[in-house]
């Protein structure tokens, strides 16, 4: 069986999270984005540099999903959240917390986990 096709810099970025060496890309005006990016959508700059991702982020919003897509059938119910990490925000699964206890403002770390349904990799936040 062949390995699944990699999604270029996205999978490179997941690798970096797994290694505890996460990063984002930043333009010369300080706008932050996640890869792959060749241009800053805000200012049009093409001067993008890798910058280390902060160790922790803060949950900006969250939801507990009970009606999933088939790819998350065995994961449900699960929490999906957007967390702010300075100049970038990232969407991920919240694990290690009771869904009822997840709140805006919670501080979380970021890593990579597996989906229960498919075994594929996913961004995971855990309370700090």
């Amino acid at each position, binding site marked *: 069986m062949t390995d699944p096709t990699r999604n270029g810099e996205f999978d490179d970025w997941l690798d970096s999270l797994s290694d505890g060496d996460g990063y984002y890309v930043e333009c010369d005006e300080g706008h932050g984005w996640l890869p792959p990016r060749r241009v800053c959508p805000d200012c049009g700059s093409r001067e993008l540099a890798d910058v280390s991702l902060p160790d922790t982020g803060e949950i*900006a919003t969250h939801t*507990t999903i009970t009606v999933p897509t*088939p790819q998350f059938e065995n994961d449900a119910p699960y929490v999906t959240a957007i967390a702010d990490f300075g100049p970038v925000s990232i969407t991920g699964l919240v694990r290690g917390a009771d869904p009822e206890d997840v709140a805006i403002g919670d501080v979380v770390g970021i890593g990579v986990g597996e989906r229960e349904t498919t075994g594929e990799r996913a961004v995971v936040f855990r309370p700090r």
Partner: protein
Amino acid sequence: MTDPRIAGAGVTKFGKHPERTGRDLFAEAGLEALDQSGVDPDDVDALYYGNFMGELAEHQGHQGPLMAEAIGVDAPATRLEAACASAGAAVREAVKTLRNGEAEVVVVGGAERMTNIGTAAATDALAIAADDLYEIRAGMTFPGAYALMARVYFEEFGGSHEDLAHVAVKNHEHAVVNDHAQIQKEITLEDALEAPTIASPLGLYDSCPITDGAAAAVLTTEEYADEHDLDAPVAISGTGQGSDNLALQDRPHLARTPAADKATDEAYSDAGIGPDDVDVAEVHDCFTIAEVLAIESLGLYEPGEGIHAAADGETTRHGEMPVNLSGGLKAKGHPVGATGVAQLATIAWVLDGTHPRADAVPDGTVGVAHNAGGTVASTTVHVLEVQE
């Protein structure tokens, strides 16, 4: 510059028609529109057609010429895809083509077949309007995406799930007399609040159903309508479209919809109107919070104030600013690629007095249609005005 006239419109019954093909649904709507318009099909110069998930639901791409065939039209036919705003984008192309003189008659429409693949597969198909790498792989569904937006809205502006429940109750009540609607049933506030949660804080009644259906309209130039003595009193006087970052995580503000703000500004400017001129609106209430965000982007309410509009009765058919007299996506249903043209048809019928809820705005002359794709990463706004 001519303001295109709406010479006829057709909408299928929205609902569960798992055995009906997209081409059959569109043929019903398109032929009804042609028949109502009185236009000879040979005079049609172009077809613009909205569809989102044809490849996934029917294993059918390249639907433009297929749909032209289905209604007996031999003209350049193009499918447009902008997620749930596909038909709104099709309307915009039709308006531009008529205005620039490339066509005198255009059929615009859309169709979607969704229930044949079941709820889980339809949820999956809808999800691809989000960012695959950064959202879908993090478990985001469309109810989930709007739930993320609702929670930020509550945090920033206040409001509650009960306020959203009033939106659902209102739209269900509006749909009761709309025979095109998927759900012609009133619900109570308790029904909405006690329904199962699908993505907290949103419950089953905060979400539109999964729907099969089609809609079509025949648009002509003012000159063609006059020459052929068509009964076409309603014109599209303004068109606007805006885009935003596809992924929610890349937006600076999750309780606002700047793509809709841009579309609104452009459409109002094009028509030479402002929000105070609007008598009635059909907005993209795929989820109850979406209606709140829409009426704020349309300038009918200030940011943070739209949440109370339904609860206060202002957007009901008895209120100052009736919104979604058709029942909206919430109760009328949401066959994704058809929705933007169904909204157009509703406003035209309300303004010409033939819609069953037209009595809500007996002297109405200006209506707007707001059609949003994805988490409002694409939005079209069209202004309709009575010309006589």
